[in-house]
């Protein structure tokens, strides 16, 4: 309508809108792109003016060589992977049992159980830090991935149960009734009948749990001393002095740990968005 009535104003509005889009895209992406660029620059070039830094400085892979020959970083990647995958596996199995019970069975105290789970998901981690430290140390799990997996269940499990429960509730009952009539036990029903239907929700919760574990810092810092996960390794990266931070390698390491997450986000965009909104709206 406006295009016909007042073309000048229309195009001005359009231009303004696209300018806003460009500003937003720049704001969201620039810090990351700047880190990517820095990871390909020599430390001697960091002092160049932005123009020379972008266009005239030499491209180098030396920061990536430094990072991939750094023993603690490589081991950090391994520990992060074991911890994240282990936590996802445990919380998916235990969480789907609980979600099946909460979404499909009738029993007393169900509301109470749901409130406890919701309550745990708003727990500040610091409230359990000391107690959890003692539990982990007494169990001989200090400085092990098993200890971290155990501690990470405090935030992955409530979320997994909450999202899966609302999903299980919406699955049509006929599927399960048929299995029950055939005399299948609850576990068989869960694995054979419900799991295939639950796949999208399992992927979503698994991905979000994986990302949360991969990024976790406070527990990893506190419950390990040498077997560090990558966030702690990167947080501790430092040069000989405070004024000699190895920014190039830090950026290279940062890019290396971020790339898998960005790849997951790009591939599973839909699942992640639905999981985030379900998680936030429902608990």
């Amino acid at each position, binding site marked *: 309508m406006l295009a016909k009535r007042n073309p000048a104003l229309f195009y001005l509005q359009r231009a303004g809108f696209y300018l806003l889009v460009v500003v937003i895209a720049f704001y969201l992406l620039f810090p990351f792109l700047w880190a990517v660029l820095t990871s390909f620059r020599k430390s001697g070039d960091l002092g160049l003016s932005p123009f020379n830094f972008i266009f005239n400085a030499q491209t180098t892979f030396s920061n990536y060589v430094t990072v991939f020959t750094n023993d603690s970083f490589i081991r950090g990647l391994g520990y992060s992977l074991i911890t994240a995958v282990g936590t996802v596996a445990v919380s998916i199995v235990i969480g789907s049992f609980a979600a099946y019970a909460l979404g499909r069975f009738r029993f007393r105290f169900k509301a109470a159980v749901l409130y406890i789970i919701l309550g745990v998901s708003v727990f500040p981690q610091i409230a359990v830090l000391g107690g959890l430290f003692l539990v982990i140390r007494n169990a001989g799990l200090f400085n092990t991935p098993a200890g971290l997996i155990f501690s990470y269940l405090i935030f992955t*499990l409530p979320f997994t149960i909450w999202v899966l429960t609302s999903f299980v509730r919406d699955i049509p009952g006929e599927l399960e009734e048929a299995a029950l009539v055939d005399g299948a036990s609850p576990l068989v029903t869960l694995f054979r009948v419900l799991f295939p239907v639950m796949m999208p929700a399992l992927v979503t919760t698994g991905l979000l749990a994986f990302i949360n574990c991969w990024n976790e810092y406070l527990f990893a810092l506190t419950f390990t001393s040498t077997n560090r996960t990558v966030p702690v390794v990167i947080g501790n990266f430092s040069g000989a002095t405070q004024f000699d931070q190895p*920014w190039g390698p830090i950026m290279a390491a940062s890019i290396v740990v971020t790339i898998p997450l960005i790849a997951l986000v790009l591939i599973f965009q839909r699942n992640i968005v639905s999981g985030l909104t379900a998680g936030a709206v429902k608990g």
Partner: protein
Amino acid sequence: MTNIGKVSTGVPVKRQRGIEASRAIQALWLLLPALLVIALVAGYPLVRTIYFSLHEASLTNPEQAKYLGFANFWFTTKDGIGLGFFQDSKWWGAVGNTLLFTVVSVVLETILGMIIALVVNSAFKGRAFMRTAMLIPWAIPTVVSAQMWAYMYNDNFGLIGRGLLGGQSALADTTTAIWALIAVDVWKTTSFMALLILAGLQSLPSDMYEAADMDGASKATQFWRMTLPLLRPALLVALIFRSLDALRVFDVMYVMLGPNTAAQTSMTGYARQAMIDNSQLGLGSAVSVAIFLLIMVIVVIYVTAFRVKFD
């Protein structure tokens, strides 16, 4: 026993009850692992934290805990020296900084998130790209974003530190550092806010806007009178979760400012320094209990003030 009423229901009541009871027992077995894990990883540690908050205890030797009452919170020696953390100005500094950080960053994230969500919700070329770009800051680990920004704030090499601030170190002083960190947090989490608001926007009925257009309501009126009130429930839940997240802030402060300064800017940093770095398990636990209570009070205020319903 052969009662006509029972026969007419098809299934004998007794057997019906038997099925219900056995289903309930099966449900408990299915729930057991989750409840056990939650008890071990959350319940028991929380009880221990409360227990140690009333004791003098060392992290290296927690068995020899000495009962103190509330002395970890408030205790004045004969010489008039306050030993409780409530008497420590550093603690109140951490509380003040955390609250400032939370209020400012959550408000800014909500406003920016709303703008981004409204932009991305309208139809234009490159919309799919923008929706993907929105996820990038969210997907970046907090520690990584902290390092990225620490580099940009660096007074020798950083774009912001050397360029915009002319060689000033924004992170050297806690009063400026808190604003620098707010900028980092806003960058990292605005996109999360925008995602949640966008999901809310997409659930609004489009025929309502068509009717408003017919009636000649301006876009601004439509936003204030229709969009905002309808978004309220989604917005409030997002606000609660972001506020709770911001109140437990730790990573970004610890990585960008170091353990000592983080203890002056983050409540969690203060508690962790007492408990882990200084091995004062009792004192650190007392601080943790205070943080826990503060956060619970804020949850209750939110839920009652805005009558948020979880279901």
